[in-house]
């Protein structure tokens, strides 16, 4: 009998990525999300083609087509990453995985990378369908490919930020189902409500991931940073809608990524398997 040398953390991370990705790709939720993306985006593209809604340019068309990406990205991120850590404390999976000679940070980063790859695959499907509409209207050479690449890059960063937030929520809970629901409520509804409330104040929603997500589409068509509408019917109520600068959106996403990932790592590292 010999003492086995364990693989390095990097090698174990690669194992975790591969195994977790395989796990994600086999789940019904991934298949469901894939169908959701494909059906919705194909329907929207088909309607655009049917009603000849080409927009004023390829950039304008893509701005509208990709505009739903933040909402879609939050749904995908919440469903894929929402239970990534909670599963270790709400089911017997943790008793299978956490007694292995693998650092928890390695497991976390492996799952994070796998969740990103799964989410990014769905994002690419979304882009592929949306781009097919742009190519239909403006031809291959009419598509601003440089902006497309930039937009996909920001969408990837957005997915990383949303997943980091989902991992953070997931590290709080022991029930995978509750973790997914709370992640969706927090990222999707709560920020939407807060954004709505802030629109009647002068505060820019720089802390909202949905606000930052607008940068994904804004690369195709610039928008004013602040739009002010005075509603005279409501006794001169002033409503402001904010649009981030692209760099600002990117900075917010990076902030989310770093803060949420570090916090989730600390919590996951310290969390105990009680009960």
């Amino acid at each position: 009998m010999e003492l086995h040398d364990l693989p390095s953390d990097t090698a174990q991370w690669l194992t975790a990525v591969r195994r977790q990705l395989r796990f994600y790709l086999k789940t019904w939720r991934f298949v469901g999300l894939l169908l959701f993306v494909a059906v919705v985006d194909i329907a929207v593209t088909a309607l655009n083609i049917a009603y000849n809604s080409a927009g004023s340019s390829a950039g304008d068309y893509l701005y509208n087509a990709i505009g739903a990406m933040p909402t879609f990205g939050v749904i995908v991120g919440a469903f894929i990453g929402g239970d990534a850590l909670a599963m270790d404390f709400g089911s017997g999976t943790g008793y299978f995985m956490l007694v292995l000679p693998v650092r928890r940070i390695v497991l976390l980063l492996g799952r994070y990378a796998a969740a990103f790859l799964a989410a990014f695959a769905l994002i690419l499907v979304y882009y592929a369908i949306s781009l097919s509409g742009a190519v239909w209207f403006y031809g291959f050479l009419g598509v601003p490919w440089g902006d497309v690449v930039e937009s996909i890059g920001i969408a990837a960063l957005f997915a990383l930020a949303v997943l980091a937030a989902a991992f953070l929520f997931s590290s709080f809970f022991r029930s995978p189902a509750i973790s997914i629901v709370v992640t969706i409520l927090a990222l999707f509804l709560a920020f939407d409500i807060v954004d709505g409330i802030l629109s009647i104040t002068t505060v820019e929603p720089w802390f909202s991931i949905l606000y930052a997500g607008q940068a994904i589409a804004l690369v195709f068509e610039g928008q004013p940073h602040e739009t002010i509408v005075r509603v005279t019917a409501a006794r001169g109520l002033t409503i402001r809608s904010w649009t981030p600068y692209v760099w600002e959106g990117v900075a917010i996403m990076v902030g989310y990524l770093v803060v949420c990932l570090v916090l989730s790592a600390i919590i996951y590292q310290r969390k105990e398997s009680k009960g």
Partner: protein
Amino acid sequence: MSAASIEVLGLTKNYSRGRSALVDASFRYEGTGAIGYLGPNGAGKTTTLKLLTGLLRPTRGTARINGISVVKDRKAALADVGAIIESPEPYPSQTVAEAIDMVGEFRGGRPADIAREIGELNAKLDLPPLTARCGQLSKGQRQRVSIAASLIRDPRVIILDEPTSGLDPKERILIRNLLIELKKDRLILMSSHLMQEVTEICDQVIFINQGQVILKDSVENVARRFQTRAVDVEFDTPIHIDRIRALGGAVREVTVVAERRFRITFDGSTAARVEILRGLVGLGPVLSYQSASLVLEDAYLALMQGDDARAVTA
């Protein structure tokens, strides 16, 4: 290479609201063999095993495996450990082979070696079909898969939390025989409620109650210490249990073991033992009169009831 070891030193675990799950537990075992960890529900058995595998962090004290602190370097401490705590569940979408293979890969096995080991474990543990999804397995099948996963790559230290829980009698025998084989060159620490199982598998026992280790000794010594507390008597002809109870005196309790066979508990003294035998002979022809075999059960009951003055922490 140094001998395999499990060491717990002053290990204490307090949960919120000041509830202590484990209080200043200490023990050390080295080499090979099997140690039974016994105690009632909530005694602190699983807490100890969780502390040993890094699933919980101690409030005070140290847990070391093969000389390496689990708190300071969990990865290194668990490098040569196979563990089953509570009811492990592989990913539901993984097949049996994938689940075991994944553990082997995390432990650094080469694909060809892992495949060979899975074949060997399949033969030993009668695993469910290797292509079956873990999410579709019964509890017993899942437990056997988890046991196989814990044994992949031949760890020298095996930590098992009620390993035969949820298994049917055939599966229990399978696991029991495997553990008896494994303990020849590995160090096994296993918690269990099944005294018979511990008697058959283990060489050493630790009794724990209310978070405190109350006795640790070899099974042999415990047996010697507690063996006179119950005797089994077998009559040649049927005898009604009430006639034995009516003997009174030293007889504390009488239970039926089998037809014409009874277990009598008493205070353990030689005088009482002789007195009871005299009474029994008067009831009918006695075929056999011997110490009850389930000594650990007697020891367990005595220790948990706290009525045994001989219980000492070795």
